């Protein structure tokens, strides 16, 4: 049964002459944790903006938990959104922010929100204008999850945060997953730190999802091969040149089958094989 929480088809968006999204397809099943990998300026924010019904797509459709982004903002009541730069009204305290937001979400759980404040060590009486970046991130996390949305959209949830706060956020994420039934769409520059949590990684490149890989695949079947090449060689599928000069070259190989094929390839005789870290896999995917 098709239990896709999120389905976007053919999303197009251009700002003047510049085309940012060129027919993007994306879907996420219930309970999936999907990472969006993309360079700065690749259209991640635009994509999130369209999904959140904050920007109108030029073409294409999107359906989130049965609702469409149609300008009414209804979709936002079903999504927990942590923006890249969380902002709240400076004159409010954390508690006032929570009480204010509570008025907009029928499924708001104030007890959960306050409990999260305690757990994340956020003083409910602290004023937003005096909050550090870390505290703002905590507050953003709490406001996103307090109404128990089925879909979480996280835009760089840990960027710029110190280790401890980052830990809090990731723990919170895992906690939400433990509750069950939550789908998460997350974009992160340091995707590596979330490698264990992700189910799937989508690479956003040239305005579309250029590639989509299971996280387990990247963790278990990505290799680094160092070989000596006497003459230039056409690279088979799934093999990407990394670096090296002269005859000594390094390659990334995705997939155990491809690795076996490579090992049998006479051009790559005597190659040194070692595992490719998740970070490096991501870098390769981005650069491709």
């Amino acid at each position: 049964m098709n239990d896709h929480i999120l389905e976007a088809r053919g999303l197009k968006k251009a700002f003047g002459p510049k085309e940012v999204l060129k027919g993007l397809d994306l879907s996420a099943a219930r309970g999936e944790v999907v990472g969006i990998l993309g360079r700065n300026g690749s259209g991640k924010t635009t994509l999130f903006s369209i999904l959140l019904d904050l920007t109108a797509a030029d073409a294409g459709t999107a359906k989130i938990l049965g609702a469409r982004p149609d300008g009414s903002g209804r979709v936002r009541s079903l999504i927990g959104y942590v923006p890249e730069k969380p902002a709240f009204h400076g004159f409010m305290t954390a508690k006032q922010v929570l009480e204010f937001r509570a008025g907009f979400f029928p499924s708001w759980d104030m007890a959960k929100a306050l409990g999260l404040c305690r757990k994340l060590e956020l003083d409910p009486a602290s004023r937003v204008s005096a909050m550090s970046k870390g505290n703002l991130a905590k507050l953003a996390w709490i406001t996103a999850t307090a109404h128990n949305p089925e879909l979480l959209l996280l835009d760089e949830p840990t960027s710029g945060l110190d280790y401890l706060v980052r830990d809090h956020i990731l723990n919170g994420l895992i906690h939400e997953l433990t509750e069950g039934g939550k789908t998460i769409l997350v974009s992160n520059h340091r995707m590596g730190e979330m490698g264990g949590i992700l189910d799937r990684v989508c690479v956003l490149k040239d305005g579309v999802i250029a590639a989509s890989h299971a996280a387990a695949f990247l963790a278990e079947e990505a290799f680094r091969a160092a070989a000596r090449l006497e003459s230039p060689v056409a690279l088979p599928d799934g093999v990407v040149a990394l670096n090296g000069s002269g005859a000594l070259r390094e390659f990334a190989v995705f997939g155990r089958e491809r690795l076996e094929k490579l090992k049998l390839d006479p051009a790559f005789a005597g190659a040194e094989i070692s595992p490719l870290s998740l970070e490096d896999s991501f870098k390769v995917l981005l650069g491709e």
Partner: protein
Amino acid sequence: MKNLIILQFRKSLLPFSVLAGAVLLSVPAALLFRPDSLTGPEAVNIAMLFWALAGLPLAIMALAGAAGSDASSDAARASEQPLPESQYRQVLAGLAAAAAQTALLILAIYAIMGFSVPLDKLNFVNAHVASHYFFYAAFLALYAFTLSYALRNAVAGGIAAAALLAVTAVPLLSASLFSGLMLDLVPMAFLNSLTGILVLAGTLGALSLLCRAYARKEAGRAVKALFAALLLAAPALPPFIGLAILRGKSAEVTWPVFPLTIQADAPQDAPGVMLVQKPFTGEVFLIDEEGRRAAVFPDDSARGLPNYFFPVPAFVRGQTMAGPDGSVWVYADRYDKPGVLMNGSAAGGLKLRAAMPDSWRANFVRGKVPGIVERRKDGYYYAQLTPGDGPLKWENVKNITGEAAKRWITGTGAEALLDAFLRSRLAEAPGVAVLAADGRTVTAGGGKWTVPGALGPKAPLIGLRLGDGMSYVVPAREGKGYAAYLCPPGKAARRLWGDYFRPGANLWAAPDGTLWGYSRKSSIVLTVRKLSGASKKEFDSPQFNILTREGKSIESFRLDNVLRDLPEAEGDIALVREEKGELWFTIGNGYLVKTGANPNGPYSAWRFPESVREKYWRSTLLPTRNGILIAAMDGVHFMDWEGKAKRL
């Protein structure tokens, strides 16, 4: 949505509190610092008026402008967009909060003024603004918000809103000025409502388009922005269109040059012409029953832009007189123009015979050779109105009669001087009679009559040309009452009617020479009596005494029968024609009525054109021999004796 509005209030709490506080503080300040010439309440009222007309507009621009630019700011967007409320409604929340704050401030000021505005103490512009205050304040608030949202800047938005307000307000003010002149040429209520609706709809529509274009970044931004601009400019259209229509219509408004009679020895010989002015274009012309016109003053309505918006109607005084050669003499005088004396005809045109630059007043004088008496700064001057083209010879009246000059110097007044002049100069002329000192002898141009108990008029008696020549009607005392005597040429005086009648006071000649008058009031008295629930209208018609050209006398002719039947009959009644026993009357500006000799018998009644009937409060009809010339709101009309009317 409610929470968003509360949030917006909270965000602008500081500036709003400061403004509200300033308004409240100005009450004790006004009481403390008032000049001694004002009482406490007056000083507070002046302070509040200052707020309303100067302080509050700035406050509105600040509050609404700040709210608008905040709604489009990145900071506000970042902290409010994640909420599950559509972006348009978020903007509307800001607008609603700004509008509510404006309303609260206005209410506070209004309450402090005791819920009443002393409109009479304000000049016209301020009174207009005060009576339309809610509209102007709403306009300013809505537009300051919307334009600040569009331009993302409170100052720019506020100034732009104020500019648009001025552009819309000036024609509205102008139209209000027109209405104030009681010329209901355009349905102001409709225009004002339409403008108000366009303001509200334009604001909401423009905000929706701007939100979609700039917040939601929909495609086609330039087109949406253009439409938004058009929507915001739309409310200026009805006032300007209304003003253009008003100007067009006001250029059609005609008004008689009063006094609305043509002086003539023999009215039945006078040409059927009317001296007409167009108060809003400055045109003055003589028009006849065929519609031919001769210009007296030209159209000078192109008097510049301030005059476009604030036309000042200029009214002309003047007189017309029929000359013995059938030509018409016209005197016209406007406060800012030198007076003119012209001669000619409507068909052939009028020629300028004398320019009268520093004339205060002038009067035509009838006689064998008509003349004109002009009051200048240094006295009265007289000139004979000679036909032809030559200049007129003016003589200072003082020089003419020592007696008259004595009376003037001793200060018995200008009228006395004129009267003395007439007596001395023209008493021997036909058409003017004087009563001798013995109280019984009436002399005029060779004729002499004895009228027992004749009432000594202080002014000469003007004659009336009846069928047998120049006759005079002299009022006399008879026992405890009065009588009117008729002095026909060549015959002895005879008692005409048993009531007081004095030509010019309550006795007139119709254009065809028929004499008519009334012994009591000339207008209809309408009493409404309630008879056990039902109201009964009772008309009290004047009683007319009529002397036809042939010499037939009709006394106490009443029109009750007719008046009862005619709805909305009101105003003065005048006899305008008698022909073969049938009588024609005009009733106010409403009806032309033709009756037979029997007032209770059959009659015909025709209504005058609507453009004169309902808009004018003063009679603008001039009966002539062939019909009635009517100066109306939309030009000059002519109605013949069978009720057929046409516009000339």
